[in-house]
């Protein structure tokens, strides 16, 4: 929330960007972070797309929250995405709240924070906004692009919109179109925010407030969906939170309640409620097949990237079936695609935690792609 207090890298995107909703934004900030060093040949760049509540601080310590980067398990020196070897880039999505243009920023027309005057954005808008960053960094072709969940959706869009901008792609635990269940869960999150009287049709920003209760509930919904039934049972069961017996009250008797409350209220310190509305909307509108006549197969028709799709067996938010549908479409379009389903009880969250089989698979793919990409560049 305090991006002015710390040094956040930003570019100003001066080129007007016509959004899917019809409105145009221009001269807007796009915040990003990089890790590792770009090689002289510029052949080692990996673009990471972050998920709904993520930001550009993938690795090391997030300078704003002072916590570890959200993908510290995968990105860093010696990690699966090895920053000793690769140059890792991540941009904050537009609509977000970590330095890129979002609903908390000033509307140049009214000189007031946007609030609900912020234009409704799509995954495609989010991705197109990030193209300027690659231009700014002088990278014509990425070695790899990757992302989980909404990050994976951005990646699919990126590949469809720019079929020749990355040598390889690893979409993780995602979908090519948001399912009814996905939309329903997002709507639950939005309704929780909107039901908080502080939200006040998004105008809380003018009063420098935050609808904390609503936003916390929205986050709790998310956290339930990121775990599997089995994982949750194993982690919490019916264990009580620092007490011997029930207290016959509505305090957090159970550990799982305490966990949700903690996650919910920690979240409000670092995220903006209106951003959740805008970004979840972008996810709900995402349907890659709708953008192309002939559906998903056409979306990947001229695909140059080599894909590795990864799903997790216990993920019920973005299921193996949904991920496989992407594989089938890529296959049908003749693209180069690999697919692996990681067996785990950890649910959708698997891509964010230390899941050795997942990390090994990703590392093996990226390292082998690097060798191929170098060879291709040499030729």
């Amino acid at each position, binding site marked *: 929330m305090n991006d002015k207090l710390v040094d956040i890298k930003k570019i100003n995107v001066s080129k007007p960007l016509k959004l899917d909703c019809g409105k145009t934004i221009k001269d807007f900030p796009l915040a990003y972070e990089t890790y590792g060093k770009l090689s002289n040949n510029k052949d080692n760049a990996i673009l990471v797309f972050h998920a709904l509540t993520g930001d550009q601080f993938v690795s090391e310590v997030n300078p704003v929250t002072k916590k570890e980067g959200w993908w510290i398990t995968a990105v860093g020196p010696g990690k699966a995405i090895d920053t000793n070897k690769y140059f890792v880039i991540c941009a904050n999505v537009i609509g977000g709240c970590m330095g890129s243009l979002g609903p908390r920023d000033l509307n140049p027309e009214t000189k007031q924070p946007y609030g609900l005057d912020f234009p409704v954005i799509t995954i495609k808008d989010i991705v197109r906004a990030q193209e300027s960053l690659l231009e700014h960094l002088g990278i014509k072709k990425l070695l790899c692009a990757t992302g989980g969940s909404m990050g994976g959706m951005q990646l699919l869009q990126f590949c469809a919109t720019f079929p020749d901008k990355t040598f390889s792609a690893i979409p993780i635990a995602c979908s090519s179109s948001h399912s009814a269940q996905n939309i329903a869960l997002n709507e639950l999150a939005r309704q929780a925010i909107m039901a908080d009287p502080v939200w006040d049709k998004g105008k809380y920003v003018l009063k420098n407030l935050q609808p904390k209760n609503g936003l916390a509930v929205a986050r709790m919904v998310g956290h339930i969906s990121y775990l599997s039934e089995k994982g949750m049972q194993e982690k919490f069961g019916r264990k009580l939170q620092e007490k011997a017996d029930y207290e016959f009250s509505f305090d957090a008797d159970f550990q799982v309640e305490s966990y949700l409350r903690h996650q919910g209220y920690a979240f409000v310190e670092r995220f903006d409620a209106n951003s959740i509305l805008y970004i979840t909307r972008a996810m709900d509108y995402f349907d890659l097949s709708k953008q192309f006549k002939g559906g998903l197969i056409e979306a990947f028709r001229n695909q140059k990237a080599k894909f590795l799709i990864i799903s997790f067996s216990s993920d019920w938010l973005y299921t193996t079936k949904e991920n496989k549908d992407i594989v*089938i479409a890529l296959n049908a379009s003749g693209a180069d695609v*690999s697919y692996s389903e990681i067996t785990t009880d950890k649910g959708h969250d698997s891509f964010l935690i230390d899941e050795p089989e997942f990390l090994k698979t990703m590392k*093996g*793919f990226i390292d082998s792609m690097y060798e191929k990409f170098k060879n291709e560049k040499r030729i």
Partner: protein
Amino acid sequence: MKNLKMKKEFKVISDLLPNNTRVLDVGCGDGSLMSFLEKEKNIEVRGLELNQDKVQQCIHKGLPVIQGNAETELHQFPNQSFDYVVLSQTLQAFYDPEKVLKDLLRVGKSVIISIPNFGFWKVRANLLFFGKMPVTKTLPNTWYNTPNLHMCTIKDLFDFCDEKNIKIKKVVGVNEDKTSLIKKSNLEVKNLFSKLGIFLIG
């Protein structure tokens, strides 16, 4: 079974494949045949493998592989989307080999199948003289733990193709380092002396 796969088999399969073709290796294991084919030939090769570890090994080698079960997931590949589909020593392990074979012929313009030959003389002798299910180099499992549900002989597969009107383009018999062409005329003899039969059909 896969780890005992003869190098000779790879060579025969490679010789059956023209350059500049798209090939799907069904049940590709750790990708050793795919690696071999990539080195020997200018072909585009893909794999399908059920086992997560083996899928990971393929990915580490930079080989494109899809994790999935040939028995249930060949439907994801469009009709005639590959020039050749290769099925190396796996046909006998499926619950429904006939259905898989049909699917292979749908996905590939041609299909290469290799089978461990149950008609090989040592196998026959085992059963005849010892009255026990044969355990050999190409058939290393015992009856209770074998993945091979539908063992067949070269002659069986020959007859099967005839019965189903599947065109047999070429059959190669392999015994250690020796290979020989199998035709209807020498089928009886070759069925006795080949450890492995490699069929090009479709």
